């Protein structure tokens, strides 16, 4: 069973602050590392993703940092907004396994 460890479990950030969520994985066979955002009662929606041949990817206020040697990747949300309040899941994907394995989730609350 592939494990993906995610931290923290919950996070409270002030509006305009930086939210940082971390994930660690065990197997080096993964070839795609997405982050999903989930609002209550909705399905997970892809937020941003990275492949292991790059160390950082930025899309707007969202950045993934990837450390292949440490088998860790993180999501940074700059200028956090109340609308960012949601649960965030990291995941790993291997084409060989043809499935996503999700982390345990981080509940983010951005306060005014």
């Amino acid at each position: 069973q592939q494990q993906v460890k995610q931290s923290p479990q919950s996070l409270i950030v002030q509006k305009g602050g930086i939210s940082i969520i971390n994930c660690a994985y065990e197997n080096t066979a993964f070839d795609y590392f997405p982050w999903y955002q989930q609002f209550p009662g909705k399905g997970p929606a892809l937020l941003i993703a990275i492949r292991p041949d790059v160390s950082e990817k930025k899309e707007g206020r969202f950045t993934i940092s990837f450390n292949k040697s440490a088998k860790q990747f993180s999501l940074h949300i700059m200028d956090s907004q109340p609308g960012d309040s949601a649960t965030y899941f990291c995941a790993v994907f291997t084409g060989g396994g043809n499935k996503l394995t999700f982390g345990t989730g981080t509940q983010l609350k951005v306060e005014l």
Partner: protein
Amino acid sequence: EPEVTQTPSHQVTQMGQEVILRCVPISNHLYFYWYRQILGQKVEFLVSFYNNEISEKSEIFDDQFSVERPDGSNFTLKIRSTKLEDSAMYFCASMGDRAVETQYFGPGTRLLVL
């Protein structure tokens, strides 16, 4: 924008009954998945389906579960004899191209087994 749709949005059933959850994946996608999420927990993989057959399944996906693509547009998950512990949110997902690797999720079906 194309999206994955699922019906019903909510289903309540008695233990031991059969349920069928339905999904319409994005039209040109080739890979289909079912995941489930027990309330407050992480999303768990159940099964992947490609070229009209199961390509991988988890240990959760036992003989009580089956999947089918009956007509080229729908993708169904059947639970033959539901148990209390099957109560969860069930998500369908689809992916167009394995090289792209992006899975798009539907809004889910909340299943409650009494």
